[in-house]
């Protein structure tokens, strides 16, 4: 029975790991200008070897290269980044309710990126200021909340206050923004993939990749770090050093993602829970499978947004609308013991 269960879990894990690649190809064909699989195939071939397929419409190539490819790549990267970030932070803080938003990382990054966009323009990468203020925000939350038995309550309250503070600063930035920039800011803050460009990807993708690789390598260590600090120390872990490393990596990927797509809520919260429900709590499985499931869900969400209607709902709103009911169901189902 146990063997059957294990082989089913292994099959499901392989499916989840392959799913993003499959969705990646499908997503390239979805949008207001639909491209059939055959058209997509010939368009890809014409990109690789323009002379071999002269009959392929130039619009196909343009849509594929300039619009769809950066957008789908970004959806994949952001989905994986936020999900792995959530899984890592939940393990590190020994609490399944922690995520980058509660720790102030998202609001710090959003403020930094907005500040950069308004005062320095698009020429200067918003990821830099996003990362700096994300570090400031999470640093403030951790320093002010301190330690103790009621640490999570303190962390939660401090997170709310720091998030409110950075939201106020963000409003201040919006106040000084020109009407045109303000409109772009407003749309971006709701979470949007529609502005994805290769320039954004050139900067954010390597940062996300670095953070993901660090967290992937630390995945077993996250199990040990999810013990109490005293236990982890007694087990031979340099708790402070390794906590800083995990927080730095999660802050880096969240800031890199937020700087180009705005605040995408709930994905980093829910995906690790879904993975734990299916595969157990071991972070050796939770981290890679969260990356795969997060990337897949983000692509599916974006496909629905692009495919269903002619106008685009910001993806941050969509993930929140879908994510909150899922979270409530999870909360009711799992209650005290989190898988």
């Amino acid at each position, binding site marked *: 029975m*146990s063997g059957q269960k294990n082989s089913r879990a292994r099959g499901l894990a392989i499916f989840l790991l392959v799913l993003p690649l499959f969705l990646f190809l499908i997503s390239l064909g979805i949008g207001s200008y639909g491209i059939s699989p055959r058209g997509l195939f010939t368009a890809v071939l014409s990109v690789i070897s323009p002379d071999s397929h002269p009959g392929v419409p130039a619009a196909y190539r343009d849509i594929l290269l300039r619009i769809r490819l950066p957008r789908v790549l970004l959806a994949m990267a952001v989905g994986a980044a936020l999900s792995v970030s959530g899984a890592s932070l939940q*393990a590190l803080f*020994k*609490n*399944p309710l922690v995520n980058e938003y509660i720790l102030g990382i998202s609001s710090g990054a959003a403020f930094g990126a907005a500040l950069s966009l308004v005062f320095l323009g698009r020429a200067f990468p918003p990821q830099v200021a996003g990362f700096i203020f994300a570090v400031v925000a999470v640093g403030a939350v951790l320093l002010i909340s301190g330690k103790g038995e009621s640490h999570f309550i303190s962390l939660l309250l401090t997170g709310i206050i720091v998030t409110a503070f950075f939201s106020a600063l963000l409003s201040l930035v919006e106040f000084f923004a020109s009407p045109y920039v303000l409109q772009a800011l407003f749309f971006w803050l709701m979470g949007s993939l529609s502005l994805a460009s290769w320039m954004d990807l050139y900067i954010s993708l390597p940062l996300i990749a670095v953070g993901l690789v660090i967290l992937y*390598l*630390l*995945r*077993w*260590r996250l*199990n*040990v770090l*999810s*013990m*109490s600090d*005293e*236990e*982890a*120390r*007694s*087990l*031979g*872990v*340099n708790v402070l050093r*390794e906590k800083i*490393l995990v927080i730095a990596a999660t802050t880096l990927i969240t800031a890199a993602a937020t700087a180009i797509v705005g605040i995408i809520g709930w994905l980093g919260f829910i995906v690790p829970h879904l993975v*734990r429900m299916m595969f*157990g*709590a*071991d972070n*050796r499985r939770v981290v890679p499978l969260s990356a795969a499931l997060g990337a897949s869900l983000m692509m599916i969400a974006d496909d629905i947004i692009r495919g269903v209607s002619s106008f685009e709902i910001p993806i941050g709103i969509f993930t929140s609308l879908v994510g909150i009911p899922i979270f409530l169901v999870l909360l009711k189902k799992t209650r005290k*013991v*989190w*898988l």
Partner: protein
Amino acid sequence: MSVRVAGLKFAYPKFSLRVEGLAFETAKVTAIVGPNGAGKTTLLKCIGAVLPIPKGSVSVNGRDLAALKSRERARLVCYVPQEHDTTFNYTVSDFVLMGRAAYISPFALPSHEDAGSAAEALDFVGLSNYTDRAISELSSGERRLVLIARALAQQSDILLMDEPTTFLDPKHETELFQLIRKLAVERMKTILVTLHSLEMAVQHSDQMVFMKGGEVVAHGKSAEIFEDSLLERVYDMKMKVVDWEGRKIVLR
């Protein structure tokens, strides 16, 4: 491995621990007893470097524990907490495997040898059939055994066990002490145990340390120092030790 504690001082806002000198020898079991708030757990945590010591030293075979890196220290000393309250529901084998953290680089995964050490530790405590069980499904007694298995997987020579028998019924309490004795004798571990049960402490330990108000009141061979006057002084109540079939019983 012999452990020496010298001039140890540690303070919380409303409590301070002061220990002039203590020594613990290889393959011996030491019971640390005293009323609530005496400083037993704090002493154990200071010895295990779970709490940083502002003054004094704890040395193992002459090596100052505070000067060692986390990994080196964990290979020498292991602190076994009273109870484990995990947020995430790991399987027993995943949990015991964490005992190998001191041997694995932060960026690496456990090897087959590490998995073998964890399996062997589970076998030693009699839980080899529990590998795939979730921690939350275990009884208190089984959870204690899993904590001890994790400590065994850590392969440190000094085990510091904080009230390992709390909430256990008499049968499991006795079995646990038999296991502790087996660890000391067969694995040559130096074992320190904090306890509330005085009868269990005197019966199963080689040495006892009596604490009160953050200080060591008395220490020595269990059979020699376990007397009415000392118990009354430590617990501030009338107590009498009687011998019954070679065992010491405390009347109060």
